[in-house]
């Protein structure tokens, strides 16, 4: 495949994985938790690197999952100590992220990891670092990692669809029915972490938040059905990724940033013109309260 082809494929995989996970993120009201995890994953990667001296996929995934779970646990712990949830999130992720940045800029050095890269991603480098897979041949490592993560996400969502739905909508009932709500929560946090870390190379710590929540939020304005919302969100994610690439190529700027920007454009369009919940509908349809 061509260089551009790999980049577009990688970007689309990022868009798809993130936007699927994002649907449950916003329904569980955990958008800012995703922001937190996307930052702390950096520390996980740095520590994994310091321990193994290798920047390979599996190490990074494990480091990221541990960092993500620690973030979730710490936030939960501070919350139980009566610190308001937003403040808990703010304390945990800024501190862990700061530690990650300090480690990078002082000890690890610029040779293997640099802050700029971690923050903004460098999708243009991705096609250069390939691995050879049986049957498929030479594939960029980051792309292969993303494909694996996407498969994990798809399997988890399809296999536990009704459990995700119920624990997101009514955790109390779920628990009374014997569904392990807490376990599902941490499983979900792990999924967010691996999605984030797999997308890290391509889009970096902050733009991944846009990929995670904006397509899902846009889809939320178009439909009242969870399955449709998932499909729409996935489509929006891929469109944002491709559009972002085109914009970046046109005006010669950061691809990841343009992808984040493109999610914003899709949201703006949805916000204005969605027939169900958009601004336009406010004027063309009678309000819901008068329907009741």
């Amino acid at each position, binding site marked *: 495949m061509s260089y551009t082809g790999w980049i577009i494929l990688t970007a689309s995989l990022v868009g798809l994985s993130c936007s699927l996970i994002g649907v449950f993120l916003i329904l569980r009201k955990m958008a*800012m938790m995703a922001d937190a995890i996307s930052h702390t994953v950096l520390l996980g990667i740095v520590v994994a690197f310091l321990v193994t001296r290798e920047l390979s996929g599996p190490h990074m995934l494990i480091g990221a999952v541990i960092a993500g779970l620690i973030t979730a646990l710490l936030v939960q712990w501070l919350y139980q100590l009566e610190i308001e949830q*937003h*403040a808990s999130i703010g*304390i945990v992720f800024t501190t862990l992220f*700061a530690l990650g940045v300090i480690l990078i*800029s002082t000890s690890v050095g610029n040779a293997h990891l640099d802050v700029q890269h971690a923050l903004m991603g460098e999708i243009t480098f991705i096609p250069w670092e390939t691995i050879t897979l049986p049957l498929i041949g030479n594939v960029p490592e980051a792309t292969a990692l993303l494909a694996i993560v996407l498969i994990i996400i798809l399997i988890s969502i399809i296999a536990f669809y009704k459990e995700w739905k119920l624990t997101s909508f009514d955790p109390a009932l779920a628990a009374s029915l014997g569904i392990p709500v807490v376990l599902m929560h941490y499983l979900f946090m792990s999924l967010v972490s691996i999605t984030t870390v797999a997308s890290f190379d391509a889009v970096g710590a902050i*733009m991944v938040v846009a990929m995670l*929540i904006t397509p899902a939020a846009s889809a939320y304005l178009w439909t009242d059905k969870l399955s449709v919302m998932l499909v729409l969100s996935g489509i929006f994610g891929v469109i944002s990724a491709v559009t972002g690439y085109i914009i*970046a190529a046109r005006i010669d700027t950061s691809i990841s940033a343009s992808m984040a920007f493109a999610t914003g454009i899709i949201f703006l369009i949805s916000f204005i013109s969605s027939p169900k919940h958009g601004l336009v509908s406010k004027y063309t349809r009678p309000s819901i309260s008068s329907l009741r």
Partner: protein
Amino acid sequence: MWSILYSSNFHWVLTSTLILGAAAGMVGCLAYWKKQSLMSDALAHAALPGVIIGFLLIGEKNIVYLILGAAISALIGAFFIQWVQSATRISEDTAMGMVLSIFFGFGIMLLTIVNRTAGGNQSGLDSFIFGQAASMVKSDVFTMLTLAIGVIVIVFVGFKEWKIYLFDPSFAKGIGLSLKGMNVVYTLVLVTTIVIGIQAVGVILIAALLIIPSVSARYWTDSFRLMISLSALFGGVSGVLGTFISAVGNGWPTGPFIVVVAAFFFVISLVLGKEKGILINYLERRSQRKQMLVTPSPSIINVKGGK
């Protein structure tokens, strides 16, 4: 390596991070009680495109214009968050996350273009991401100091108004305080603190300087006045120590060090704090348990009372 510590410029830088930390600590208390800790994070990220546009329009790094640009774009971000959550069923934290990441993305798009056209990192705008206090020159410091002191004065002068505005808005309205007016002043003070902090701490971590000291202060006092003073103290000391440490290394970013120092104070407060600190709680619980073992259980008392 240590020579920088003696330069007069560095003294100015230290002064500015001290005052900045104090201002952020005070405003952080307001944000804490308004339950908007993460709002500061969203607004800080949203300020980035404004900084770059300010630079593009003026063509040089004039801090007044950069701050102006940052303030405008942060305010637009705040407006969007408010609008999206009131006009649709999208929740506040989703709206914040979107504004945060999309505005930041837009800022990076612009920054990449600026860096390319200005030839490498000549513009020095990169330091806005993690903060580079040491790169500030005296005129920057003066602007920052003026604004930070302005913020401190506003919090200080309107102290009792802030108090009722935060604790009991409906009562505040009842006695004729304009909530709308207070909201405007609050947003302005918050945005000003954020944008002046950007240069020293960077857009990503400035929120920490607002959140962490105020929560730390909470562990030492129940009085709002004392909480604000303590938070200012924690913020100021973190600012100075963090700047100091980062100046030791070559090109070390200031922001992360300030945050880690602030987090250190937080952990100490969390464990040792005299209000609800972990240690105090543990000791109280232990003595409670001992008491429970000594006194008869409530059911026995009930039986006696029934006779």
